């Protein structure tokens, strides 16, 4: 599979934000529409230009509101795209799908959106749960999904190599320092110390409160098109330099990847091969961080450090503002807001466009001026992984 012909051929030309955090009274659909419209405006496009719409997975609505289907999103955006798509179960192929559709000429400008009202609707994730009736037999054992599943993966990691809270605390704290520079981050006004981290209650061993992603209201969107068209639009050109994807697929309860590599390894190799670069070309990372552990295992599988050496990699603020390799510069899912893979990807785009204010990579944060940023997304419980390497032309 020679993907090199796709290198730097497609670009992300606009991003859409909404009010985020806890924004009571809003439907998931309303955030979809607001994020989508803002991305179209940000790109300097009009709605008639959008001929592909790809929505992320939508969990069932918790409140009295319609499911935010892609039909409904398209209807409210007033568009009739050639291709309309929504993934069902976290298999994270939005960008590989967008590039494929553009490459085959089915579409010209593709809008990718995720939104939810998870905070106001009290979506089950990490805090006190309001879970609908369980959907599989594991509930009979009190096993309800993401938190317990990732906790068991992390517990096995602690057995396989040297890791644990002493490593993860650095990840949580470094990201919080980025969030403290980002006014729209949910934890903008709250600092995090080692004592705060360790003294926070255990939720599901070995995870404490600050090991887990936030729950957010809001939406996020971006638009993918050709570099050719991107050059005529108003934003600086940020290309998709490399793309990778891997789907180990096996349910975490039967998986052997807890003791070996996750999909990040194969996906990373594919993306770096397409981009024709090595790890040392990366100026910053936006890593999908549903849990602190996910950042560690992903970067370990990408090859940034050997198994068990994460604690040395992340310590002394190495990935915080002023650090040698900035990681999750918006605060990430842990400290900014949860919009699935669009939290990392849109932050990578914003950094390369130079639109990040006090957290801007470069002189402002005593970090390297960024040219290439590594982003990734992860679905299911380590069952799906995608890698997106972005570059400022």
């Amino acid at each position, binding site marked *: 599979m020679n993907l090199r012909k796709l290198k730097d051929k497609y670009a992300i030309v606009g991003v859409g934000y909404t009010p985020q955090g806890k924004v009571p009274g809003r439907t998931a659909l309303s955030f979809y529409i607001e994020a989508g419209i803002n991305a179209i405006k940000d790109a300097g496009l009009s709605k008639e230009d959008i001929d592909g719409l790809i929505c992320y997975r939508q969990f069932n609505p918790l409140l009295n509101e319609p499911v935010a289907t892609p039909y409904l999103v398209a209807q409210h955006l007033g568009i009739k795209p050639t291709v309309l798509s929504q993934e069902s179960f976290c298999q994270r192929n939005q960008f590989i799908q967008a590039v494929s559709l553009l490459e085959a000429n089915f579409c010209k400008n593709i809008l990718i959106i995720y939104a939810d009202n998870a905070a106001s609707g009290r979506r089950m994730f990490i805090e006190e749960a309001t879970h609908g009736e369980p959907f599989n037999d594991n509930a*009979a054992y009190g096993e309800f999904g993401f938190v*317990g599943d990732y906790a068991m993966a992390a517990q*096995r990691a602690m057995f396989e190599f040297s890791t644990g809270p002493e490593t993860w605390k650095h990840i949580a704290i470094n990201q919080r320092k980025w969030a403290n520079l980002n006014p729209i981050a949910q934890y903008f006004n709250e600092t995090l110390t080692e004592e705060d981290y360790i003294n926070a209650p255990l939720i599901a061993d070995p995870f404490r409160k600050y090991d887990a992603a936030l729950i957010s209201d809001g939406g996020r969107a971006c638009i993918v098109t050709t570099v050719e068209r991107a050059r005529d639009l108003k934003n600086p050109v940020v290309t998709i330099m490399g793309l990778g994807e891997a789907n180990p697929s096996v349910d975490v309860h039967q998986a052997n990847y807890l003791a070996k590599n996750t999909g990040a390894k194969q996906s990373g190799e594919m993306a770096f091969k397409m981009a024709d670069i090595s790890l040392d070309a990366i100026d910053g990372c936006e890593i999908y961080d549903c849990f602190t552990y996910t950042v560690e295992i992903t970067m370990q599988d990408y090859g940034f450090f050997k198994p068990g050496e994460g604690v040395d990699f992340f310590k002394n603020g190495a990935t915080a503002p002023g650090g040698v390799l900035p990681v999750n510069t918006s605060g990430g899912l842990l400290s900014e807001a949860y919009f699935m893979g669009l939290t990392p990807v849109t932050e990578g785009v914003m950094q390369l466009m130079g639109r990040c204010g006090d957290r801007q990579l470069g002189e402002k944060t005593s970090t390297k001026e960024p040219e290439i940023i590594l982003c990734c997304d992860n679905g299911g419980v380590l069952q799906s992984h995608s890698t997106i390497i972005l570059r400022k032309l």
Partner: protein
Amino acid sequence: MELFPVSTFDTEIFYNGCKEKKLIFQKCKNCAHIIWPNSLFCPRCYNNNFELIELKGYGSIYTFTIFRVAFHKAFKDKVPYTVAIIELDEGPKLVSNIVDTPLNEIKIDKKVEVVWKSCGNTFLPKFKVIS
């Protein structure tokens, strides 16, 4: 309240065994793979002829977590409780609970044996640490 597993076309092989406190699994007659979860076909060789075998109920803790928070009202009075992946000696990995064991004795690789616990009108295989 209690939550119950729901037997399906695929999984009734396992749950019918549970009713009799037996760990019944499908073993592929072609490649000898003991498959789990239950399926109509062997994922290794696509054969669909199986013999049903009873596993002995011994294994080890592959990994676990201790839930400190109830994610469903049925578990409000049960925290803290342990969910574990049990690697049975014959190969399959089962999600279950560690029971009848002090929390500080629950560690990866510890040997366990099955303990059948009632659940509605059937039984579920749970596991306790053995020395």
